[in-house]
C-alpha cells in the first residue's frame, strides 16, 4: 500500500462518513417532504428539527472534507470530475444552499406560511442533492469521466447514474427513518416511532429491490466496476444484504438500537463495496490512484492533517453524538429555548 493509496483511503473515509451522517440528514428532509400537511406532519417535522438540528452542520463538513482531500491529493482527477460533471455539481451546490437555508430559517419562522415556504425548500433540496450526488458517483463508477474531460451531458446521464441517484435517495431515506424511529422512541413518542419504523421498513425493502436491479445494470453499463464488485467486493455486498435484513427484522420488532446499528452496517457495506471495487482507480477506467496523486510532501501533509483531525475533530464529534443521544437531550425540549 503506497502513500497515495493511504490518501485515497482517507478520502474514502470522508465519502463513507458523508453517506451515513450526511445521508441521514438528507433522508430526514425526504420524509419531511412526504410528511403531509401541517396537521398530520407536525409531530414528524418537530422530531426532524430536533434530531438533525444540532448535527447537520457538522455532518455537512464531510462533503467539504471530501472535496479538499480530492483537490489536494488528486488535483487533476478533481478538475476532470468537476469540469465534466459541471451541471450535476452545480445542482448539488444549489441543493446544499437551499437545504441549509430552508432548514435553519424554518425553525425561526414567525408564521405557518413562512415555515411552509422554507420547509418546502429544505425538503425538496434534501431530495435533489443526494440524487445528483448519486448521479455523480454513477458517472465516475461507470468510467464516463476521462482525465482530459468528458461530455458535459452524456457523462452523467447513463444508466449507472440513474441507478446511483435513485439508490442514494433510497438509502438516505432508509437511514433517516431508522434514526428518526430510534429518536422518537427515546423521546417517549411511541406513536411516531411506530410511524417511522413502518417508513423505514418500506424504504429498506424498496432499496433492496432496486439494489438487486442495480446488479444487472452495472453488469451492462459499468463493466470494470461490476467485475471487481463480484470479485473482491462480493463480501461487502453479502454483508450489506445480511445487515439490511437484520435491520428490517429489528425494525419490525421495534428494537431500535439494533436496527440503527444494522442500518448503518448495511449502508456502509454497500458504500465500502463500491470503494473497494473502484480501487485502484480514482476515475474508473481513466485515472489510477498512483498516476494522478499529487506531490509527495503534500500527501504526507494530508495524512498528518487526518491525524490532527482524529485527535481534535473526532472526539468533539463523539461528544456531540453522545449528547444528542442522551436521554436528557431527547426529552428536554419543553424547557429549552
Amino acid at each position, binding site marked *: 500500500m503506497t502513500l497515495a493509496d493511504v490518501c485515497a483511503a482517507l478520502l474514502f473515509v470522508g465519502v463513507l462518513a458523508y453517506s451515513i451522517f450526511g445521508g441521514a440528514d438528507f433522508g430526514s428532509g425526504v420524509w419531511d417532504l412526504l410528511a403531509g400537511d401541517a396537521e398530520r406532519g407536525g409531530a414528524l417535522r418537530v422530531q426532524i428539527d430536533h434530531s438533525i*438540528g444540532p448535527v447537520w452542520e457538522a455532518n455537512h463538513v464531510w462533503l467539504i*472534507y471530501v*472535496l479538499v482531500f480530492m483537490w489536494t491529493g488528486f488535483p487533476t482527477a478533481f478538475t476532470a470530475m468537476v469540469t465534466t460533471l459541471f451541471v450535476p455539481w452545480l445542482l448539488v451546490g444549489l441543493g446544499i444552499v437551499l437545504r441549509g437555508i430552508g432548514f435553519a430559517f424554518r425553525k425561526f419562522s414567525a408564521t405557518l406560511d413562512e415555515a411552509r415556504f422554507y420547509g418546502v425548500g429544505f425538503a425538496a433540496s434534501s431530495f435533489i442533492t443526494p440524487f445528483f450526488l448519486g448521479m455523480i458517483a454513477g458517472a465516475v463508477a461507470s468510467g464516463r469521466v476521462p482525465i482530459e474531460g468528458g461530455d458535459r451531458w452524456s457523462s452523467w446521464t447513463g444508466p449507472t447514474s440513474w441507478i446511483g441517484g435513485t439508490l442514494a435517495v433510497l438509502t438516505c431515506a432508509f437511514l433517516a427513518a431508522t434514526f428518526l424511529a430510534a429518536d422518537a422512541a427515546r423521546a417517549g413518542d411511541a406513536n411516531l416511532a411506530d410511524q417511522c419504523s413502518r417508513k423505514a421498513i418500506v424504504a429498506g425493502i424498496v432499496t433492496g429491490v432496486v439494489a438487486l436491479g442495480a446488479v444487472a445494470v452495472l453488469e451492462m453499463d459499468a463493466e470494470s466496476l461490476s467485475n471487481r464488485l463480484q470479485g473482491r467486493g462480493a463480501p461487502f455486498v453479502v454483508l450489506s444484504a445480511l445487515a439490511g435484513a437484520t435491520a428490517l427484522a429489528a425494525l419490525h420488532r421495534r428494537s431500535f438500537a439494533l436496527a440503527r446499528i444494522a442500518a448503518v452496517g448495511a449502508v456502509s457495506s454497500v458504500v465500502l463495496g463500491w470503494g473497494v471495487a473502484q480501487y485502484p482507480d480514482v476515475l474508473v477506467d481513466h485515472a489510477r490512484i498512483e498516476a494522478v496523486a499529487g*506531490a509527495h510532501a*503534500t500527501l504526507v501533509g494530508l495524512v498528518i492533517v487526518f491525524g490532527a483531525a482524529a485527535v481534535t475533530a473526532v472526539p468533539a464529534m463523539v461528544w456531540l453524538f453522545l449528547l444528542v443521544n442522551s436521554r436528557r437531550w431527547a426529552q428536554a425540549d419543553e424547557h429549552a429555548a
Partner: protein
Amino acid sequence: MLAQTSQLIAARYQMAISLGFHIVLSCFGVAFPALIYVVHRRGLRGDADALLLAKRWSKAAAVLFAVGAVSGTVLSFEMGLLWPGMMSAYGDVIGLPFAMEGIAFFVEAVFIGIYLYGWDRLPPKIHLRTLIPIMVSGLFGTFCILAVNSWMNAPSGFHLVEAADGHVDVVDVNPLAAIFNRALWTEFTHMFVATYFVVGFVVAAVYAGGILRGRRDRLHRTGFAVAFAFATVAALVQPLIGHVAGMRLATDQPAKLAAMELATTTEAHAPLVVGGFLVDGKVVGAIRIPGIASLLARASFDREVPGLDGVAAADQPPANVVHTSFQVMVGIALLLLALALWYWWRRRRGVDPLESGRFLRLALIAGPLSVLALQAGWTTTEVGRQPWIVNGVLRVEDAVTPNGGIWLTLTAIVLLYGGLAVATWLTLRSMSRRWRGQPDADLETPYGPPAHDTDAQRVEAR
C-alpha cells in the same frame, strides 16, 4: 477570443459576488462567538440583561452560521467549477491549508451545535466554555484561508520546470513553504482583526438603532457597549497592521502598490495621491501630499515608490478600481476610529454619548460603513492582484473553466444570493420583533404538535 473574455468576466463576477457575500458571514462566524462569550459570562455572574443578550445573540448566530456554512460550501465548489486551471496545476501546492481548514470547520460546526442546543441542557459553566473551541477554530480557520489567499499574492513552495514540449511542470512542492509565504502573517492578522471590526460595528449599530427608536433600556446599552468595545480595539489595531501589510507590496507586488497609490511614475519622494482618477494615463482631480507615499509605503521620504510605468500594460491591474477601493477602506477606517475615540473620550468626561442623537445616528451608519470598508479592502487585494490569479505565475484567463454558460450560473447566483440576503434580513428582523413582544428568548416553531393554523391559536396555546 471574445467569448472567452466574456466567460472570464462572468466567472470573475461570480467569484466576487460569492466571496463578497461569504466574507461578511465569515466575519460573524469568527468574531461573533467572542462577543457572545462576554455577555454570556456576565450573564452567569448575575446580569440578567447580559444573559438574555447571550441567548438572543446565539439564536441570531444560528441563522448567520447556517448561511455562512452554505455560502462557504458554494465557494469550495466554485474553486473547482470556475478555476480548474488553478486547482489542477496548484491543487497539491496550496490544497493543504484547505484541508486544515476542514478541521477548523468540523470543530466549529460541532461546538456550534453543542452551544446552540446546550441552553438548559448543559451545566452552565461547561456550556459557556463550549464557545472557546468555536473562537479558536475561527482563528485557525482564518489562518488557513488567508494562507491560501496570501499564497496567491506571494506564491512560494514550488518550482516551475519547462519540459521539452513547452509544457510547464510544477515541481519541488513544499506545502509548508507555500503556507508560510511572505504575505501570510500580515494578510492573516489584517483579516482576523477585520472580522472583529465588522462584527463590533454592525452589532453596535443594531443597538444604536434600537436606542434611537426610544428603547433606552439597560439591555440595549449593554449590547451597544460590549460590541462597541470590540470595535474600538479592532479600529485601533487595524491601521497599524494595514500599514505593515502595505510595506510588503513595494518589493512583492509593485503593480498592486502603484495602483493603490495611483502612482504613474516610479519616483522617490512620491506624493500621496488622495482621490482622483486615472484618465488616459494621467491622474486628474487628486490632491497630492508630497513625500507621504514614500514615507508610508517605504518608511522613508527618499525611497522609491513603484509606479505603473514600471509594469507592462498587460500586467497592470485596473488602477482606478484599486485606488478608489483602497481609499474607501482607509477613509472609513479612520472615520470609525475617530468615532470610537470620541465615544470613549466623552464617557471619560462623564457624558453619556448614548444620550446624543447625533452620536447614535453616526454609530448606526458605522455598521454598514464597516462592511463597506471590508468589501473595499478585499477588492483592493483581489483586483490589485489582477491579471494574475497566482501572482506572476498564472493568469486568470489561463485558470478559468472551459465550460460555457457561466453567465447563466452568474445570473443564478445573483438571484439566489439576493433572495438569501433578503430572507436573512427578514428573518432576523422578525426574530427581533418577536423578542420585543416577549421577555424571554424563546421562539416557538410554528408547526405542530399540535399543529396551529394561525398566530392567534398559537398564542392561545402557549
